[in-house]
């Protein structure tokens, strides 16, 4: 299971970074979202893989590590805020630059107004 999750994280990271290296705002944001999934999973599994033992105090005596979970929660929220900001920034950039290229390059399919 550890290998499987490692592979999943690896693939997510790779895909995220590949997309983050594209030239248009939208795919880049998609890529960063993928990357944040990978990162969240990475943080999460740092508490090691535990099946069926949520961190809710009950009669069981085995628990999962709650700290990484709390960290992931915070990371998810912050990631959401960042994604939202980036999206609006992408709109702002298209408005100012006339296209959605990350460097504001004028290309064929859209001319600045």
């Amino acid at each position, binding site marked *: 299971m550890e290998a499987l999750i490692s592979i999943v994280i690896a693939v997510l990271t790779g895909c995220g970074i590949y997309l*983050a290296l594209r030239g248009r705002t939208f795919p880049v944001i998609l890529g960063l979202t993928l*990357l944040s999934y990978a*990162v969240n999973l990475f943080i999460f599994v740092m508490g090691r893989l535990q099946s069926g033992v949520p961190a809710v105090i009950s009669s069981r005596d085995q628990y999962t590590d709650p*700290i990484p979970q709390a960290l992931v929660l915070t990371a998810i929220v912050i990631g959401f805020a960042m994604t939202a900001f*980036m999206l609006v*920034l*992408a709109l*702002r*950039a298209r408005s100012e*630059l006339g296209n959605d290229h990350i460097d504001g390059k004028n290309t064929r399919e859209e001319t600045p107004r």
Partner: protein
Amino acid sequence: MSHLVIAPILLPLITGLILLLMPERHRMRTHLLSMFSVFALMVISVLLIIKAGRGEFVVYALGNWAPPFGIVLVLDRLSAIMMLLSSTLAFFSLLYTTDEKAPQVSPHFHSLAHFLLTGVNGAFLTGDLFNLFVFFEILLLSSYALLMQAGSARRAKAGLHYVILNVTGSAIFLIAIATLYGLTGTLNMADLAVKVAAADADTAPFIGIAALLLFIVFGLKAAIFPLYFWLPAAYSSAHGPVAALFAIMTKVGVYAIIRVYTLIFGNDAGELSNILLPWLWPLAFITLILGAIGALGARELRVQISWLVIVSVGTLLTGVALNSETALSATIFYLLHSTWICAALFLLTDLIIRQRGDAEDRITSAPEMRQSLLLGGLFFVAAISVIGMPPLSGFVGKALILQAATGPQTPWIWAGILLGGLAVLTALSRSGSTIFWRMENHVVTAPAADIWSVIAILGLILFSFGLMIFGNQVIAYTNALAEQVLHPQPYIQAVLGHIPVKGN
């Protein structure tokens, strides 16, 4: 128990929130409240400096949970002086915006500035690595928002690059934190120091990865080669007061590098002792050189000053890389100086832009400025200081760092700092003489600079003067600071030995 330690975080936070609730039309009221709050913050930082100056650590356990289980704030000499720096910087940057006619300040400027301060001060105070991440995000997001206050193509592009790079950096930050937690099971920096020092040969290399990844994150904030590329565009496209506020942000990166690589991966970190040092000094050196080259080639004053920020980062990290008390002390001294002066220069450039019509701050001939003598005089003084010429603080800072250089890389460091200084001198003499002297015969009809704006710039320059005049007291403080930072055992004991308030 004293809650003063948390005030530098909560005061700006609450001020920022209240400012959000105030109606936009009450511009002056907003401004006054904002100024009052920053002023109070300045007073608080002075009190904290006095407190920290005694050499004790003030540990504030949030939620009254004993470290390492809860989050702690730790006040030591380093965090105290950094907060003084941030609050003074904020005070003058905000003071600068008093001018009613200034076009740029959007309604949320003040609250965003306060949120930025929250993030900055939080980063300085926290003793918890993940909490550091959270405060980094607060300050980053505030800075994004401040940068994007108003539209322009240039700003949009710079903002996009800045944000995307930093979001990527945050991902790496999280991976590093998670790795550390996954191997040591703790987030408290003092506790991490203990655990990292005790790491065996099996886990140490993986902790090492985290250590180096953290450096990438901090290096991105601090703007070190090859991670600074976002900075010139971002800083130079920001409005003057915003850019001035930004002067503190690279210093947060520098602070984090100092903190983490002395406390956690410092001299006592066992297998991982000083893991950063082989990387740090060459990169710092290249940063210094490329920054100076950038300043030499800049075509706009704003861009040039942004490069000066990079030069100062290179200089600072060179000092850090020397890993000695004298060097660290010199570094902190230089840090204070360079932050104040770069901020003053950014503010000044804003005034220049307003009086130069369409030429803005391009280093070309332009119509005469309305107050060219005043602005030129201020520029001259600030430039002298930033170049590191006497009699201003830059000279002392530079001399201190040169003095502190030891070891085989000394010739490089000397060459870097001295030649960098020469490049900056050449660059600034060109831009200054062009902007203030190469004037066309007519004057742009622009309003005269607001008196408060001038006072703000003067204030920052005066702080630089103060560093020179009270230099000995400052150096005494930074010496003690360096001693404290480079011998982290008392810090660790203070944090891990902290006992919560009874009764909970």
